[in-house]
């Protein structure tokens, strides 16, 4: 019984860790898409940031500088997307896909050129990473039944970026719903002409949204390479940017529902890890691929009929031209 309780707890704890980059990317996508800029390049920005953070960490051995570098890389990529889609009125999906392909290749090329380890960075030392934080008193109450393990493993025991991601959700919700910037952001995503006639620059608004998006994907990327793992490996984002996009759609472009979707997808992933190589009585071993495919399948099925229509911001994907 005690064991089963611990397994559930550890699975939930893993859920939070796995969900963290999803949450950050989903919030990033929310800012971009609510302003009217479709972003399928979350994946690429995250990967670029993961590499940037790991590379800087390998040189400086400073987690904070590495994080800043990751954010910077992602913002630069976001600005490329912004320039293509806002200033040049380009196709936003094409631009996003281009960023994904670019970073997938460029990270490996630069990795090989700089570190000569087949596209990976060297393993990073502890001071170059964000390590799990033990909450005060966790050791002392660890033996208290039920609550002790929750405090130690579920609430505590994560690195700082996990808490940043969790804090990003209410913050995003608040910015979008309660601030002037949020009101204008939503307006730009629905009817940019109304924003324009109110005397507000649609382009500058969207650039700011895109940069915010970059910063958040930058944090997500840094999480992958200098917090969750100890270095960069090829294509380590592994489609999580797309899962985050699915979660965003699933959550109908709103912060709290998107968090729910991220946690659901993260949970499925955590279960998949735990089920690896385990025989389930009567069924046998469940192929890992099956569970890994679940988030995508679930998105399609649920969007197809169970959660109602997900209406995207009306102007998203449409370049705004002044007449």
């Amino acid at each position, binding site marked *: 019984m005690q064991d089963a309780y611990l397994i559930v707890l550890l699975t939930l704890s893993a859920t939070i860790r796995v969900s963290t980059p999803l949450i950050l990317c989903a919030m990033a996508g929310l800012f971009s898409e609510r302003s009217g800029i479709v972003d399928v390049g979350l994946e690429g920005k995250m990967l670029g940031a993961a590499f940037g953070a790991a590379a800087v960490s390998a040189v400086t051995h400073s987690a904070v500088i590495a994080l800043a570098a990751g954010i910077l890389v992602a913002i630069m990529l976001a600005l490329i997307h912004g320039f293509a889609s806002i200033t040049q009125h380009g196709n936003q999906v094409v631009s996003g896909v281009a960023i994904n392909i670019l970073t997938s290749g460029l990270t490996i090329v630069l990795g090989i050129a700089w570190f000569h380890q087949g596209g990976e960075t060297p393993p990073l030392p502890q001071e170059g990473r964000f390590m799990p934080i033990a909450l005060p008193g966790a050791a002392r109450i660890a033996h208290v039944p039920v609550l002790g393990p929750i405090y130690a493993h579920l609430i505590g025991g994560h690195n700082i970026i996990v808490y940043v991601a969790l804090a990003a959700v209410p913050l995003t919700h608040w910015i979008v719903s309660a601030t002037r910037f949020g009101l204008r952001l939503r307006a730009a995503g*629905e009817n940019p002409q109304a924003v324009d006639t109110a005397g507000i620059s649609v382009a500058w608004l969207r650039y700011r949204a895109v940069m915010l998006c970059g910063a958040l994907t930058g944090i997500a990327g840094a999480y992958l390479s200098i917090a969750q793992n100890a270095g960069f490996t090829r294509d380590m984002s592994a489609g999580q940017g797309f899962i985050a996009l699915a979660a965003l759609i699933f959550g109908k472009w709103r912060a709290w529902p998107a968090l729910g979707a991220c946690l659901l997808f993260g949970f499925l992933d955590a279960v998949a890890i735990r089920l690896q190589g385990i025989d389930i009585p009567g069924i046998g071993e469940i192929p890992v691929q099956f569970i890994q495919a679940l988030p995508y399948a679930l998105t399609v099925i649920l969007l197809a009929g169970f959660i109602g229509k997900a209406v995207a911001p*009306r102007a998203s994907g449409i370049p705004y031209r002044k007449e």
Partner: protein
Amino acid sequence: MAPAEPGPPAIELRGIDKRFGAVHANRAVSMQIASGSITGIVGENGAGKSTLMSILYGFYEADSGEIAINGRPVRIRNPRDALRVGIGMVHQHFVLIDPFTVLENIMLGAEGGVLLRRGKALARQELQRLEGEYGLGVDPDAVVGTLPVGAQQRVEILKALYRGAEILILDEPTGVLTPQETDQLFRILQTLRARGATVILITHKLREIMAVTDEVYVMRAGTVVAHRRTAETDIGELAELMIGRKLRLELDKAPAKPGAVRLMANDLVLHDERGVMALDHVRFAVHAGEIVGVAGVSGNGQSELLEVLAGMRTAESGRVQVDGADITPLHPGDPARMRALGVAHVPEDRQRLGLVVSFAATESALLGYQRDHAYSGPVLLHHHAINRHCRTLMEEFDVRPRQPFLRCANFSGGNQQKLVVARELARRPKVLLIGQPTRGVDIGAIEFIHRRLVEQRDAGCAILLVSVELDEIMALADRILVMSDGRVVGDVARRDADERMLGLMMANARPADGASTA
């Protein structure tokens, strides 16, 4: 009501000039609009009214000319500048955000701080004050997308007032309104005037001008052609000024020899997307060998009529009879079926419906007849036959340049139109529906197309001609129908018609009213 103060005019425009490429949208326009008045600006579509107001609201900058507000010269480069000098605009197509509440829509751009909460409270107070003053009857917490059109328009008015606008421009405000909503709007405008605001009303509906304005400017072809006190003019005069005496179109044609009925419309009813009745029990007949002209200010149901007759839309009730075949809501027509019945259609909007501008002339010349066995096998098109056909059409209708493989976009408007007309006439149709045949077409091509239409008539074709150009109707038609608000309000033989009488009918004033003021 307070008498107009003898201060400087609220708006003074001096010599406003604006070109878009080859189009001279405004030429040397000057106006003086008195403070605390309602001023109407009338003119046909394309007369330059909307361009002028867009200049005033900072969407465009004039190429030359000056603007003075309350006697002070100003430069208006963008909508923000316009707001700063107290100009608010209610666009023809509302610029609202549907999923937002009324309050959020009104606040946008004037939020009153980084955080919304305080601004929202203040905005709510201000809205209550405006509500008390003008009685617009709009719930601040309603979601805009769920409101009826009339209420959405009042949100636009509130938006302008909230920003402190003292000059309010309304661009074709009644086009989307029901008569009740229109009355309510006019009451609001009168309240605004009583409180000292200046209102500019752009419209082509003359009755509204008579009902609510103090003064009226008439625009035609980019210039101001007249300025009247509303009390000293009448609908007949305004209609005549608006339409003007353009180029005289002279055409030698023999009297028509009408034959059997070829096309009959019986009690057609259709509502448009807004639920306004676009066709209101329309009935008429067109005989073989006659040209029936449909006159009217654009937007009074003519476009919908053409679409129904061509099979592009289905009427809600009523029937169309073509040479004995019945098209009813239960047996709807489609463009292919109508073509098979011998109905040819030259649509009003040739670039959108008449041809594909990115296609070569050969391809556009085939549209609608691509299933014809002469041009198409089971899988492949017969390119030689198609090209030969296009060359023949170009010869016969003098389409220049004679390059069948040139993209349609590279032909001038007149030559595009000749190609479309050639395509439709080549089949010797029994019935020809033709909308705005000479819109954007040069004079030479106009004459050419007109002569061809008369030839078709003499060959026994029944022609229904829809045009906003009264001169064109007068030159071509043997019988004239006048449409207004979706109804056929007049049906007169050409020889009994004159422009003034048609103008009155188009404005839907009863002929008796017109006679008494004449």
